């Protein structure tokens, strides 16, 4: 699944301002042409075309059985002629057959429900999976642009909308088409003149449907979009609830919520109000045609131009066959909500993933850990260079420290090493190979990484530590936790390693979270190690205690360390001092101190008690 990206050339997470200034940064709604949308939908439904065919057969059979019923009851009634004149054997026979037909029809109806459920669940499940898989393929920068809650709304609401209308409407629309075409054939064969019925109904319905779909489609899109925006806001604000509360700004946030809520609710009401015009309108068209036909038919009869019998069957038929037409028109407008939702789903499925690995990309194996950056330039936004002309050589087993004032581009280097972003200019080599010729997964596996932003998921402590090493044993996990000096805390918890970490994680401190992520990294046996402010929230004593474990961890590995506590990086083989995206100084602690330059003053400042 997940066909070719829709335009663009996978520019990683970079984006131009104009691209972003659009619609409150919800993911952009490219107008997908109807044909393309149907084609994409068919890619999903078509996989289950057997089910579609089966559903059609079932529904046709059960309607035919349903139609035989009245015929049989007609025969039964014909056999009931009057007092003392009833053909009981025939009546009973008809009744038995009626029962058979009806029960069979009910059973088939149920099987049909089953098939349709299967179909719609399979399709929506596949869609959800595809959306999710593309989420995992998207460049990291993508998620800086769009609210998490908005994306979630697509996975939940939009797909559910598609699903609901698939299970409800798809079958009806197919059935209606079948009925309409069969009916048309029958009418033509009985009395060609009856086609006149359609002279008014069909064009009127057609024109109306075209008009209404054009009108409601944007409304349904707005409904999806506004609900997504509401969800985005809710997500963000619930995450920041502690701060909102601490500042006592609940009221103001609630006001903001109300704006979004009003938008969402109004969008819903508008789409609903206009969308439901269809039913009454199509009914109106039918009723007008009935009124006209019967009136003028009656006039014609009085003028002696038609027979009464013809007239009544004419009207009977026109009533019976206008039903399915109404239905089709109704469903087409109902489908608009599914199309609007599908549009958002496909936008996400088709969002440009990271540039795929080259087809002949190499697996990085037997890593020695020789990392070299040559003349690297990089910017997140064109024209705003973050890194310029960066050169760096980290030999296997060496420790490179990256220091500099905040915002100097330290974390960006990590982003480049891990290939979350590709360099604009220059090269990065690992063991002499340009990382762009390597598979991303093998490159990333070569590193262990502990980031400033601790990320723990809703699961047990054990699972969180063992995350990077599937199949890790309890012993290994405990050993890692001990090395990270978090074991004694864990063992004091009532459920120990089986404690489930909750969202707010109120009872676990930030420092403890960092220690858990360090334990996670300790379990990995990668040849290169990245520590980005890994211990910024850990107290100095604990940090010192885990230093020894860190050293064991770092032994023989090529390490990149970002830290503000300069004491932790004094032993680095190479200290890179960044300022404004450029390396301003490079060397060992001793040589840099001797230079009395930027590093030296930075180092001194940490002991500079303000007087």
């Amino acid at each position: 699944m997940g066909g070719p990206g829709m335009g663009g050339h996978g520019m990683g997470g970079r984006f131009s301002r104009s691209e972003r200034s659009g619609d409150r940064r919800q993911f952009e709604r490219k107008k997908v042409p109807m044909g393309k949308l149907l084609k994409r939908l068919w890619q999903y439904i078509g996989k289950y075309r057997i089910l579609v065919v089966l559903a059609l057969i079932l529904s046709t059979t059960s309607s035919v059985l349903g139609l035989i019923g009245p015929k049989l009851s007609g025969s039964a009634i014909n056999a009931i002629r009057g007092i003392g004149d009833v053909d009981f054997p025939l009546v009973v026979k008809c009744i038995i057959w009626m029962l058979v037909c009806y029960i069979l029809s009910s059973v088939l109806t149920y099987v049909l429900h089953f098939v349709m459920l299967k179909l719609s669940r399979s399709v929506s499940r596949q869609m959800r999976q595809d959306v999710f898989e593309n989420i995992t393929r998207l460049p990291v920068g993508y998620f800086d642009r769009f609210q998490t809650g908005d994306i979630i709304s697509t996975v939940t609401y939009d797909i559910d909308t598609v699903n609901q209308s698939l299970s409800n409407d798809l079958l009806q629309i197919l059935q209606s088409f079948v009925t309409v075409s069969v009916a048309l054939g029958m009418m033509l064969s009985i009395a060609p003149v009856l086609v006149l019925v359609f002279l008014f109904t069909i064009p009127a319905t057609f024109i109306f449907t075209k008009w209404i779909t054009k009108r409601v489609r944007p409304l349904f899109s707005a409904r999806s979009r506004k609900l997504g925006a509401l969800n985005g806001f809710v997500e963000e604000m619930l995450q920041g609830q502690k701060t909102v509360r601490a500042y006592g700004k609940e009221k103001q946030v609630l006001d903001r919520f109300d704006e979004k809520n009003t938008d969402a609710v109004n969008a819903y009401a508008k789409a609903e109000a206009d969308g439901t015009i269809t039913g009454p309108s199509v009914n109106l068209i039918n009723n007008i045609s009935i009124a006209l036909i019967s009136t003028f038919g009656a006039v014609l009869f009085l003028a002696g131009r038609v027979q009464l019998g013809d007239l009544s069957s004419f009207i009977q038929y026109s009533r019976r066959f206008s039903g399915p037409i109404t239905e089709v028109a109704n469903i087409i407008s109902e489908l608009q909500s599914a199309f609007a939702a599908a549009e958002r789903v496909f936008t996400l499925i088709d969002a440009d993933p990271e540039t795929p690995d080259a087809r002949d990309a190499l697996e990085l194996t037997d890593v020695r850990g020789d990392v070299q950056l040559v003349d690297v330039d990089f910017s997140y936004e064109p024209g705003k260079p973050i890194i310029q002309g960066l050169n760096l050589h980290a030999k296997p087993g060496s420790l490179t420290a990256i220091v500099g004032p905040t915002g100097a581009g330290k974390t960006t280097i990590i982003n480049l090493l891990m290939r979350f972003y590709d360099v604009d200019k220059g090269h990065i080599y690992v063991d002499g190979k340009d990382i762009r010729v390597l598979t991303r997964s093998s490159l990333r596996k070569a590193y262990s990484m502990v980031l400033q932003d601790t990320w723990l998921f809703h699961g047990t402590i054990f699972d969180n530590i063992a995350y990077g090493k599937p199949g890790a044993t309890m012993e290994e996990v405990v050993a890692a936790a001990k090395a990270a000096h978090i074991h004694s805390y864990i063992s004091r918890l009532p459920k120990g390693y089986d404690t489930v970490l909750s969202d707010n994680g109120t009872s676990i401190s930030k420092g403890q979270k960092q220690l858990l992520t360090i334990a996670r990294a300790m379990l990995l046996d990668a040849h290169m190690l990245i520590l980005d402010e890994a211990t910024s929230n850990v107290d100095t004593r604990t940090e010192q205690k885990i230093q020894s474990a860190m050293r064991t961890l770092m032994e023989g590995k090529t390490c990149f360390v970002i830290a503000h506590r300069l004491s932790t990086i004094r032993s680095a083989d190479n200290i890179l001092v960044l300022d404004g995206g450029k390396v301003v100084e490079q060397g060992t602690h001793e040589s840099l101190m001797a230079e009395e330059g930027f590093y030296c003053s930075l180092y001194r400042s940490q002991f500079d008690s303000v007087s």
Partner: protein
Amino acid sequence: MKGLAKYIRPEVGYMIITMIIKFVATYAELWIPSLMETMLDEKVPLGDIKQIYLYGALMLLAAGLGFGLNICANRMAAFSSSRITKNIRHDLFAKLQRLSARQMDELTIPSAESRLTSDTYNVNQMLTRLQRMGVRAPILLIGGIIMLVQMDIMMALVLIALLPIITIVILTVTRKSLPLYTQQQTVLDRVVRVVQENITGIRVVKALSKTDYERDRFGKVNKDLSDVSQKAGLITSVSGPVTMTVLRIGQTIAVLLGAYRVFSGDIQPGVIMAVLQYFIMIINATAGVTRIFVMWSRGEASAKRVSTVLELPEDMAVEEAEGEPDANAPHIEFRNVSFSYTGVGKNIENLSFRLEHGQTLGILGGTGSGKTTILNLLMRLYDTDEGQVLIDGRDIKTIPNEQLREKFGVVFQNDFVTEGTIAHNIRFFRDLPDEALQRAAVCAQAEFIQEKEGGMDAEVVVRGNNLSGGQKQRLLIARSLAADPEILVLDDASSALDYRTDANLRRALRENYRHTTTVLVTQRISSLQHADLILVLHDGCVIGAGDHEHLMAECEEYRSIAETQMGDGKEVS
């Protein structure tokens, strides 16, 4: 729906009018065929062309009436149920804001999120559809039964005997499907969680090459969702065919009964024909009623999830103050405070301290020693288990929330940066002039703002991901200072700042916020060595209290931390 009744009540009048309009509209539409029959059967044989035109006009009128009234009722339904939903959402969000952190932990954010949007959406949809479709089917059903009774009471009895069975079937299916729909929403919470975790942790997932694992994990919840909704679907689909079968069996019994009654001369054969017509009408109407119940059970499951949250008891009410506070009371006082998050073990044990106006409290201690907990208690994000927290001599439990919060400017660890502009983030929903933001930014050493394109109006992306860790922290410090708080609370707020910036920040704070009482949690001795009072914590207990000199002399733990941090020592001035 019981829990949400109070939201529906104000709209009941409006909804009744909607239903009445719908009723008239349905009636108008049903009138057309009977007008037509009268015209063809009675008027045409008379040959009166005027009458024919009159009936034609009446039919057009009925058609127009049906059209206009239906649209009107549909719109009214859409708008009234949206108003209801709007109010439910408003209250639900307000309630979520008031939940204690503990309650939120139990509820979980993904669940709160899906209750707020997905569940309320289901309720909205149900309300709209019930109003729209809830009239026609019952009218036809009741009308059909009445006509049947009028036609022939014996055959009507067959139907009436069947009605309890049908009712039981529909009710049983509804009762069985309800928990499944609830379960479906619960699984949806898990889907939300996995997506959310993968977006926030995308770097880690990619770095550890766990993409396949996460896909499997999602695949599992995805399958669960698919399975449970299929199960719910299968159960609800039972009611249609079963009621259908029951009614049709009734129909055949009626035919047989009719045959005997005709045979014995009780009725005319034509009656059977009419009875069958009404049976078909009733069957179709029952199908409609069944659909209504299916809609209802899905909506009801969601309504329950919403009202559960709305009905949660509220922790932390504001208590009545007893007597006047002591005028000479210190600014902040902790009196024998103990607290535990889980009820197991103590996170803070018997803590007491006093802090005067304008003083600075520094809190130092190991990871998990209870530093942040003290701040949580001070700001009343949690209530103490034992002891009191007092501000200006008043127990904070007696201070109304707005008054209490106004006193504080705060930066938490890993605090929350929202999407928007820098100014928006510093202002943080408060009514502050631009100068105040500017002044706070300068003091917070956030000179990077000037360098940004647009300055204060520069864009901040989701989660502040276009700012470095240090930039975020300075932005947050600016936020905490902007309203000139009475009490400034900084929880490891400068950990990502280099030492020089940190030192400049401290100097600026001292110079510009002399009257602000500051509570400072930090790992750095240099950040708190000038504090008036320093608490050294270990496992929730104070193991040292006093100023820097005192602690250097008396507290072993403090001294050793200081020595390791100050390195060679001689560089300390």
